[in-house]
């Protein structure tokens, strides 16, 4: 049987980043990475921070997510990301700068609240630069 295509949409609170048909998506689940192909069994899971890989034909696109949820139904895959960026359009120097800034912010933070916020930004920046270089 022809496998068909997977209806995939990636939405973050600010906007819809991707919506369309693809061959498959690799998702970093909380309890391990998994690949979603067309006609995947229904599953609902949380996602840890990391990059997803969208495969369509010979093309692959990688997007970096900061946690969220993946919902697979018969209709397709929906990822609700807390924050998401397309890795293709990123500037390496800018990311490195962001990472350094985040490190400084963590050191300079005066209250616990600010430190926690800065720490989460740092984790994000670190994950992002790893995904970009790895």
């Amino acid at each position, binding site marked *: 049987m022809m496998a068909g295509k997977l209806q995939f949409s990636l939405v973050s609170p600010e906007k819809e980043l991707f919506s369309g048909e693809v061959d498959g998506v690799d998702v970093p689940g*909380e309890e391990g990475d998994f690949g979603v192909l067309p006609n995947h069994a229904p*599953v609902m899971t949380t996602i840890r921070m990391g990059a997803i890989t969208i495969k369509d034909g010979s093309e692959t696109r990688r997007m970096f997510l900061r946690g969220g*949820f993946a919902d697979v139904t018969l209709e397709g895959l929906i990822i609700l990301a807390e924050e998401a960026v397309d890795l293709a359009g990123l500037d390496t120097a800018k990311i490195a700068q962001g990472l350094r800034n985040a490190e400084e912010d963590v050191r300079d933070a005066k209250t616990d609240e600010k430190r926690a916020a800065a720490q989460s930004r740092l984790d994000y920046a670190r994950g992002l630069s790893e995904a970009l270089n790895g």
Partner: protein
Amino acid sequence: MASLKEFRDRIDSVKSIQKITKAMQMVAAAKLRRAQEAVEAARPYAARMSAVVGNLSSSMDGRPGAPELLVGNGKSDTHLLVVASADRGLCGGFNSQIARHARAEVSRLIQDGKTVKILCVGGKAADQLKRVYADNMVDVISLREYKNIDSSIAAGISAKILSMFEAGEFDVCTLVFSRFKSVISQIPTSQTLIPAKDGLAEGVSAPDLGGAAYDYEPDEEDILKVLLPRNLSTQIFQALLENVAGEMGAKMSAMDNSTRNAGEMIDKLSLQYNRKRQSMITTELIEIIAGAEAV
């Protein structure tokens, strides 16, 4: 009777007011476009989110151990009203509309014998509610320092609400905001946030799984534990965006009206000014002619 100079001064001052309102209208129009885009871009996420929550809640239905955020804590004695309004005025009846809606809600709840607490997001509705319900006010969160509404602001507000809920400070939480229907129409709306089950958009039904069983990873409870707070902040985020768009829409039409009114006023004043000038010239002429005849 005002002198000609006084007329000129008044016309000048109305003209500068008109310039200001005109500028404010244009600024509001530009911001409105951006805010409208933001609302529309954020809608899919909120819609998907309620679909997922609805999905999970239907599978949790009737089971013991369902999270209190979803099904409530069994009581409805104390209500927390989160009133979201704008932080700035000069936007017509926008803030008053929200405040009026909130006041009606509060008095209805008090009549039912409930305790009401009010948490204001944005200062303008707070100013109006303080006059009547100062004792019920818990806190006012100002959005003045933020240039753009982003999801971290909503996350902060929802964290505050959650910690209050966990401390048992209220049983039911309702959000009051203005739904952006169009530039000229914003509808004050109440939405139940906690228990989340009651606030789900109608018509959300479990997706057709074709008989296959839904797998949860980790299990439902763990997912709900993460999902429900996220859902809360998503709903708040959406409401804030709707509010900004509504505020800008209301401001735009309010400023458009003011600009037009100023224009009318200038016309009227100019007419009076011209009449006055004319009559002064006439008087002078009569005096000259009368003087010449007398010689």
